[in-house]
């Protein structure tokens, strides 16, 4: 509804964890993803809304940084 693209609420970012591993997430502002190194998954952020569904996540290949 607003013209400016939504950004993820910082208070939300603080308390989000991986729904699968319940481990911490790292925020990648370039890719607009939340990365769960423990689960090897990257959750997309669309229009400021993190999509924290396991079946919507991207599988990370190889060794994550």
């Amino acid at each position: 509804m607003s013209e400016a693209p939504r950004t993820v609420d910082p208070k939300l970012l603080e308390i989000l964890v991986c729904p699968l591993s319940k481990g911490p997430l790292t925020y990648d502002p370039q890719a607009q993803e939340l990365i769960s190194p423990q689960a090897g998954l990257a959750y997309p952020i669309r229009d400021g809304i993190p999509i924290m569904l396991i079946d919507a996540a991207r599988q990370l290949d190889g060794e994550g940084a």
Partner: protein
Amino acid sequence: MKIFDRATVRRHRDRAAPGLDHYGFLFAEVAERLAERVDDVLRDFPLVLDLGSHGGDLARLLPGRKGISTVISCDLSEAMVAQAPGAAVVCDEEFLPIAPNSVDLVVSNLSLHWVNDLPGALLQARAALKPDGFFLAALFGGETLKELRDSLAAAEIELEGGLSPRVSPFVDVRDAGALLSRAGFSMPVVDTETITVTYEHPLKLMNDLRGMGESNAVHERRKGLSRRETLLTAVENYLDTHADDEGRVPATFQIVWLAGWAPHDSQPQPKAPGSATVSLADVLGTHPPSCSS
């Protein structure tokens, strides 16, 4: 055990999102009642999590009340949370992506009835709360849509010789308190209220349920279309049994309220049995007759 097909729940909610202004009246009504209940609690709740937020009714109602500054709307449907103002996240209540001890209040307005593992969802909600945080949820209770359920059942028995699960199983009030305790809430409270909505016609009710995103998502439901004859007979049954003088029909929605607190040392604790040092009779000044002189 999988009772509900969560992908179907998600699809129904996605499909219902654009028409919510028109069909969401029951969610809006119960959201108002939920906000009033939050008003009655003598505590401030800066950070709130709304589980199964639909279009964000509570994110519109709650901020400004009881020291609430942020309401995070979460829902299985992206199309639903996209309508919510403020912070929003798409998530599954069965896999809650929220760190332990992080929010002051968890609310849920008519959503947890679609969860397969209600004890697990309650446990995760409790874990997300800070100590002494509050949980308040409205669920559909077992009396919900009893007129529709009876009418459909009678029609199916008559025409198809058996029943198929068409209306969701709902939580039973008697189980709800035990569920809260099992999830680790202290001071659990359960109560119910009934909202009766009057419809011009049973078909209007069925149409509304679809519009709310509440159509059948039971895993074992019969796929494909229902037999037209069965539906028509059900409508006839509904009218025969429940219609008033003007042909209007009631639909019962039973709301079960669940409330509980995340445990904290400041809360009242029951004393260990036998730990009393003063007789209750002394305090009340009523001595048993045999002891009185």
